[in-house]
């Protein structure tokens, strides 16, 4: 049974993947309104709809698992169970209200607007201080050429990105503004292109390994 199911899942993943992949290389206009090509195209759409639905169900499965973890923590009174209790209270209250009244209801939006938003926004605001602290310490801890280029570029871009040390409207503002644009749109863009190509190559290789059943993230059972 184990060997059979493993082969079955691999066959499903490969077959479905090849069908979806072919759609990227077929012109939509070239697909006739009827015929086997249209059927295949419709099947491709159906598969993607199933995938979208299952992604939502997977989100639910993940939430149930999260609930179980914190529930066991509270029931066993493990270390930090008080925080897990707070999590459970907030989670169940939001979920139940959201399931009953909908995520766009006023009650649920209260939770979103007055709890989730301010906390998440403040966490992002802490990033400013964290980044400033990291920039302050970088050269002291790693005094090498790469760190110097990194901090120097960041400083020049900051100078040209808005008000600050350089007052707006002057020659310096124009110079640093142009320098900032050149750094961001030419040299950084070149490096970014290389990074994007590398990332794309890596993603393609990973996807092909899955399609060829070399990697089986769906399990071997």
């Amino acid at each position, binding site marked *: 049974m184990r060997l059979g199911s493993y082969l079955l899942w691999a066959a499903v993943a490969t077959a479905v993947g090849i069908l979806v992949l072919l759609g990227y290389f077929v012109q*939509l206009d070239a697909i006739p309104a009827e015929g086997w090509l249209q059927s295949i195209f419709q099947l491709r*759409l159906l598969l*993607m*709809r199933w*995938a*979208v*639905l299952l*992604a*939502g169900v997977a*989100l639910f499965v993940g939430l149930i698992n999260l609930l179980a973890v914190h529930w066991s923590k509270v029931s066993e009174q493990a270390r930090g169970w008080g925080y897990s209790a707070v999590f459970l209270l907030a989670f169940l209250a939001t979920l139940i209200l959201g399931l009953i009244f909908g*995520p*766009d209801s006023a009650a649920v*939006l209260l939770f*979103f*607007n007055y709890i*989730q*938003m301010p906390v*998440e*926004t403040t*966490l*992002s605001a802490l990033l*400013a*201080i964290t980044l*400033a*602290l990291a*920039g*302050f*310490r*970088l*050269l*002291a*801890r790693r*005094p090498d050429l790469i*760190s*110097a280029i990194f*901090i*120097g570029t*960041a*400083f020049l871009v*900051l*100078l040209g*990105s*808005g*008000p*600050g*040390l350089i*007052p*707006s*409207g002057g020659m310096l*503002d*124009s110079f640093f*503004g*142009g320098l900032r644009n050149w750094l*961001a*749109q030419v040299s*950084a*863009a070149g490096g*970014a*292109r290389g990074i*994007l190509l590398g990332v794309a190559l890596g993603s393609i290789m990973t996807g092909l390994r899955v399609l060829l059943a070399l990697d089986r993230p769906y399990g071997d059972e």
Partner: protein
Amino acid sequence: MPEVRCPMCSAPNPETADVCGECGARLKPLVAGGDLGLPHEEAGAPGPPPGVEDGEEDWLARIRSQALTSGGEEPTEEESGESPAPDWLGRLREADSGYEEGPPEGVLPEWMDEFIAAGDESEAAAAEDEGLEQAEQVPEWLARIRAKQAMQKAAIPEEEDWLERLRHEGEAEIPAAEEPPSEIEAMPPSEALEEPLPEPEAEEAVQEGLAAEAEPETLPAESPFFAEDLDALTEEMPLPEVQEEGPEAPPLAPEDLEGEALPHVPALVPEDQSEVPLVEIGESDLEGVELPDWLEDLRAEIPVSAEEPEEEVESPDLAPATLPSWLEAMRPTDAFRPEIEIEREEEQPVESAGPLAGLRGVLMAEPVVAKPRMATAAAAQLEVTERQYAQAELLQRLVDYEQQEMAPSEGPAMRIPFVRWAISLVMLVAVLIPFSFERMGMRGYPLPASISPDLAPLIQRIGDQPVDRPALVVFDYTPGYTGELSSVAGAVVGQLTQRGYPIATLSTRPTGPPLAERMFAEAAAAGAQVSHLGYLAGGPTAVQLFSIAPRDAVLSGFHLPREGEEKDPWAIEGLRQVQRLSDFGLVVVITAGTETARTWAEQTHPWIGDTPLIMVLSAGAEPLVRPYFEAADRRVDGILTGLPSAVSYRQLSGQPQLAASQWNAFGTGMLAAQLILLAGGAYGFISWLIRRAQG
């Protein structure tokens, strides 16, 4: 001069030598009945060994004379030549009643006849030179016995063995002692046993005489022949029981072997007997034995020293095997003994069964064979040295330490993060100060003068789109970036609502729909056509599906108007003809992450057609999205990033500006950040210089 090689040590020796100068081995074999090489005055006979004077040849006579002297009598030639009545042999016979073994059958030497005669008559026969010579000859069997006892005594450092000294000492030799007469070999054992044992007094004299004579004349260091003969004697005949001074020990009766008379072998002794005395035949043992004169002379020649250290037996050339300490420790101590310690003769029981019945010093057959041996627990006992004990104790302590509960270690010393506090204070004060600019009478930062060259085409592109086609605005950012993107995207959203586009919002994140609802709340309240398509799960797959068939991807919306029965998100005027992505007039993706921007850029092509794809990005995501914008085959048709660009956009598009406080706070925050980076760079540079100077 021709040389002869010693058969034992291969040392060269003169041809005329009888014994080897190196090891003392005989160079010329003995012939039965022939001359034994003893020193005598016969013409042609080999001279005495070196170191032996002619006057000392008559060593047997000397021993006798000394014995008589010690007994208070002046030694006379006759008397010295006469051997006292050796009743030691007789005692031997008495003690070992069943003793039958003796010298081999055959022709008895003449000196043995003397002994026999002396024993019968209990008078010492007149000793002539020839008789002396013959009397000087030690019975082979006795010599072997003595030698073996000497070897055993050599292992025991407490007592010295005069016979051992005979073997190992000096250069002088007593040829007579080395060469037992060949007649002894043929002598019947019974006849040898008939010889009377020497009297204790005579034995004493013999011992003293031997001791006195030991200096000038000593046996060669190694006398293999002598030792060999002694060994042969020992092998053939058991050791005679040596009685101490005092009344003669009655012969053991068979009834004495019963009960507690256990075999003399210590290995078979029960455990309660912790120590088994070693059997030694030392001088004291010989005190009660009347030795022949020749034997007394031997003893006299050897200096008696009770405290003389035991000479160690020369170890053979081969190095003894040494066991490792751990293996040695595993040797059972009590259950097995590497050496059988032989008790003294008088303590040894008499064998009562078998062919050796009546003999002492033999392995008892019955106790070994018939009686089962009790297994002793001593077999399991190990010998533990001090070092091993210390190591075992250390190991035990380590194990106990591991099992101990460690005290909770104190946490690391609290470090006050001064730098973090200082930078936090600087940043917070920097963004707070602008709110007091008005009160302080300060002007804020002026608006940016330089405008990005990309802004104008963007504004143009958005402005040129027909308003009958809806605009899709994608809110793919987390609520954390609301503070930035609401300000930046507000410029674009403002233009869209200003132009009256039907707007559809969408998000591939669960938090996107409420953010969209917040962004367009005012516009919707103002009457704008806004339809929130809600949340789309699946990431790139959802974007691809939406690009191909938007209506199949979105089945329900978000925050749809409750009025009316139509809850179809596609029900608003502008969205009814939308079948695919290209049916939208404009697609604006508001995102803070490069992954989302890349997903929309990859998946929407070619389904987007000519519809422009505009990216409103967080400032940090711009570098990785710009390559899509600056390619000939563009996937992104416009980029708006950063507050300065948004401010410029508002300026160019004629929209109301942001609050001055927000712009000023942004400015002072940027100033603080620039100063912090500058200070950090200077601090790092100075630190590097100092470290470099210190080497």
